[in-house]
């Protein structure tokens, strides 16, 4: 029960590692320090890919949720992928916020600014944190999958509304926020390459983690089923199916 064939997964894992290693080398040493922001700008090589990944992850969650809700494509695989992807999305959204904050302190002089994009990202973080909390509630697998899928789609529909209202609010209040053209100079050469390398490395990392998290999610579900069987057998006083046999069954499905 893997998302990707096993050899693909192994190759992907190593490629991700190499890409991340290359990103470290390029980001820290090869790319020149920024003319205005000097070394703090190097955080962008992580911040921008993390933000991209967060959006990608939430898009995948919405897509797979829709696939689950649509009867013709309904399959448990979509539910597992939706949950795994949302988890990664929340982690990377958190990372985006923390990295942005670390960068903001030396460059803007503040940890946080009430910029539209920042506020939207923060709301996004809480939206999907709620979704994950909803997923954690035990119960019938199909019912849980359905309500999670609907919650994911509501969150997805809400994001543009939040973004629109927040950006409108900020632009009505103050002209030219911190994200004006002067602070985002054109980038080129090694810096642009490093940024793209970051995006590539993080995307690979996302696919790899998604596939791993999916496997784990399936195994968790199977383990719960096995534990339930054992508990029922104990309850009715029958000799319990042996745990190691059950664990073997879980192993076989991998």
């Amino acid at each position, binding site marked *: 029960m893997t998302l990707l064939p096993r050899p693909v997964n192994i190759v992907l894992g190593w490629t991700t590692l190499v890409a991340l290693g290359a990103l470290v080398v390029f980001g820290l040493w090869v790319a020149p320090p920024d003319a205005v922001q000097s070394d703090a700008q190097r955080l962008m090589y992580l911040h921008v890919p993390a933000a991209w990944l967060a959006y990608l992850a939430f898009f995948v969650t919405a897509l797979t949720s829709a696939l689950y*809700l649509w009867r013709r494509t309904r399959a448990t695989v979509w539910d597992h992928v939706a949950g795994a992807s949302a988890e990664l999305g929340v982690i990377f959204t958190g990372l985006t916020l923390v990295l942005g904050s670390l960068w903001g302190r030396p460059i803007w002089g503040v940890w946080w600014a009430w910029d539209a994009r920042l506020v939207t990202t923060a*709301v996004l973080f*809480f*939206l999907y*944190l*709620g*979704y994950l*909390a*909803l997923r954690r*509630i*035990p*119960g019938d697998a199909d*019912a849980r999958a*359905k*309500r999670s899928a*609907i*919650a994911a789609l*509501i*969150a997805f*529909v*809400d994001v543009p*509304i*939040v973004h*629109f*209202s*927040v950006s*409108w*609010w900020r632009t*009505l209040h103050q002209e030219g926020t911190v994200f004006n053209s002067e602070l985002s100079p054109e980038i080129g050469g090694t810096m642009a390459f490093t940024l793209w390398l970051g995006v590539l490395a993080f995307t690979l990392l996302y696919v790899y983690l998604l596939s791993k998290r999916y496997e784990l999610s399936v195994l968790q579900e199977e383990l719960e089923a096995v534990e339930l069987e054992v508990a029922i057998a104990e309850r009715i006083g029958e000799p319990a199916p042996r745990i190691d046999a059950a664990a073997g069954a879980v192993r076989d499905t991998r």
Partner: protein
Amino acid sequence: MTLVREALLVSGKDLRIERRAKVTLSQVVPFAAIVLLLFAFALDPDRGVLTRAAPGLFWIAVLLASLLAVSRSFAVEAENGARDALRLSGLDPMAIFLGKSLAVLAQLLVLEVVLTIGVVVLYDLSLRSLVPLALASVAATIGVVATGIVYGVLTAGLRLRETLVPLLVLPVVTPALLGATRAWEASVDGVPGEAWPWVAVLGAFALIAGTVGLLAFGPLLEES
């Protein structure tokens, strides 16, 4: 037409329960009122901060109260297998959604009138342009209620629902809080021209939340 009739039937039932039990009136409204008092403790009433922040504080109080109202709306269905009865009643799920929303909406609008008097008296707020203010309030409340009812049925019968609903609802309704606060500020400042765009945003939010609710309520009620 049957949709409207059935919706009124459901909202009539919920409001009748409220008339007899008086939970919103005797618990939720006083709760919102004490929140207004607490804000005065947090922000010095003598420095004019309260008056300036009044629109936002008002809406935060409304949002907190709306969580309780939604929770109450599903608590009445939790006992005596009422939710199963509702499912088996043959009523259109869309009508049930509309009916439950209408009942909560009516209660929250009453609560908002009481709280408005509260902020006018306690925070020394003068309201100028009443029309955009009222329209913004109604639109924002529709959006909040529709969202709340969807999450209410989504979590109906689940363990941990009391703590889960606020986490789910509050991030989704941030546009309503934002828009309603701005519209109120514009009305308080006496510049209705600045309120109207926000009324439009709130109307759009209410429309989207209502549509999502109509579509999602049926499948969710079946699963709950």
